[in-house]
């Protein structure tokens, strides 16, 4: 056990790094979709003591929702709001990638020190889960647009799901599905809000929401 899921975990890490370095919104949406599919495959492979039904259900849900439905929704939001294609970063792309590497080192260190109630399927699983979560947070913090915030939340959620896979014995299926549903609603709401913001204010840069505070 371990070596067959390692390539997927590494691919997850690479997707995270690419997300940090990507300058085009469309590319980011595609990358998040890829990440969702990868997560589904991961859930299929890590089936220690699960019923196969559960694994298939989770994997199928993940692939369907994150790989197909969410990207479609965001695609629509992008089209509808006529958003410019760039990510508009606060932190430059190259620096983001290097910071990402730093975060990865940190999570590997933390992952080595955390004691889990059950042994994880791979020594990489916990660091990758933490790293994905951190990447999501970073995207939320370091990019300007509202839509990238949605992307960030999605990546964050992917990290949490990875963590859930690491602790597959503990987390009941309902929690997983509940989380998925939460995000689903969140994406929908965001889509609607973005649409409305765009109609009212003509732009969707989150940093300009500051003007609303008065």
């Amino acid at each position: 056990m371990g070596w067959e899921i390692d390539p997927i975990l590494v691919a997850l890490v690479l997707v995270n790094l690419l997300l940090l370095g990507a300058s085009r919104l469309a590319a980011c949406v595609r990358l998040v979709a890829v990440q969702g599919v990868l997560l589904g495959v991961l859930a299929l492979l890590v089936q220690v003591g699960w019923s196969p039904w559960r694994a298939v259900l989770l994997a199928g849900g993940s692939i369907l929702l994150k790989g197909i439905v969410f990207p479609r929704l965001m695609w629509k939001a992008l089209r509808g709001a006529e958003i410019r294609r760039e990510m508009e970063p606060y932190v430059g792309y190259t620096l983001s990638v290097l910071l990402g590497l730093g975060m990865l080192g940190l999570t590997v260190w933390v992952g080595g020190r955390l004691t889990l109630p059950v042994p994880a399927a791979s020594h990489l699983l916990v660091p990758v889960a933490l790293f994905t979560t951190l990447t999501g947070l970073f995207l939320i913090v370091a990019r300007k647009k509202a839509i990238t915030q949605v992307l960030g939340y999605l990546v964050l959620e992917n990290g949490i799901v990875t963590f859930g896979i690491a602790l597959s014995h503990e987390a009941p299926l309902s929690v997983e599905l509940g989380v998925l549903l939460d995000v689903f609603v969140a994406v929908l709401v965001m889509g609607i809000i973005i649409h409305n913001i765009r109609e009212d204010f003509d732009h969707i840069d989150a940093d300009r929401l500051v003007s609303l505070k008065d």
Partner: protein
Amino acid sequence: MMPSAVGMLVGLVLAPLLLGVVNRVKAVFAGRRGQPLLQPYRDIGRLLRKGAVYSPTTTWVFRAGPVVGVAAGVVGLALLPLGGCRALVVFSGDFMLLIYLLGTARFFVVLAALDTGSAFEGMGASREVAFSALAEPALLLAMAALVRATGMRSLSDAMGKVWSDVWLPSMPVAVLVAAALAVVLLAENARIPFDDPNTHLELTMIHEVMVLDHSGPDFGLVLYGSALKGWIFAGLLAGVLVPLRTGSPWLNAGAAVVGIFAVAVGVGVVESSMARLRLVRVPQLLVGAGVMAALAVLLVR
């Protein structure tokens, strides 16, 4: 000893053929017949038989550039293992000597470019040093990943254990190292997506523009030197990619040579299917290669 020496000779003889293979692959993709496979040999031979023209601003440094380039390539081949077949000279940290020998060659090529006093060649030299400064840590980190994965500190020993210590237990390390090496190979050998060897616009070139002023035998040496450099990088990449390690060094070396030509085919495919990157994106890709190599180091248990 015997297979190592033959391996070095094979490199000396076959290096220009790599260029022929790349060109042929590109031609096939473009639906052309393409130039003969042996065209690079003919080019080099023709240039070596010609006279030369020099600019009055140049000094011996200009003439030294191509010579040092070929010398570094020749000596570098002695340090290059062909897959599981050991190199002629093996010691801990030998890859550093190999990388820095190529660095010496680059240093003199850059000086030769500056010696002409041309704005274009200065521009090429400036880009070359900037990009190679980023490629160097990526290359060293890739080597460090191999060292950590195999526990061996010389190139030949590390390559010899790539199969049993890297490929079997953790494929991601091998893939990441190979990816980083591939990026560095494309950048250092002035291939698309970093540089377009066929462009006719000097402003967009990196490597070609530095040797604009070389002619005759000097240019022949430049071509041969860059062919040797290409062989060395392809050899490194093939050593990681082709995990065939048998008891017979002859078989290992043969597999590696096949791997090297496979790398050349791969370069041709990349060149046919990609466009040149904008110059500002080049550093990002090189940093990406470094990050992949660093990731490989982190992944080794």
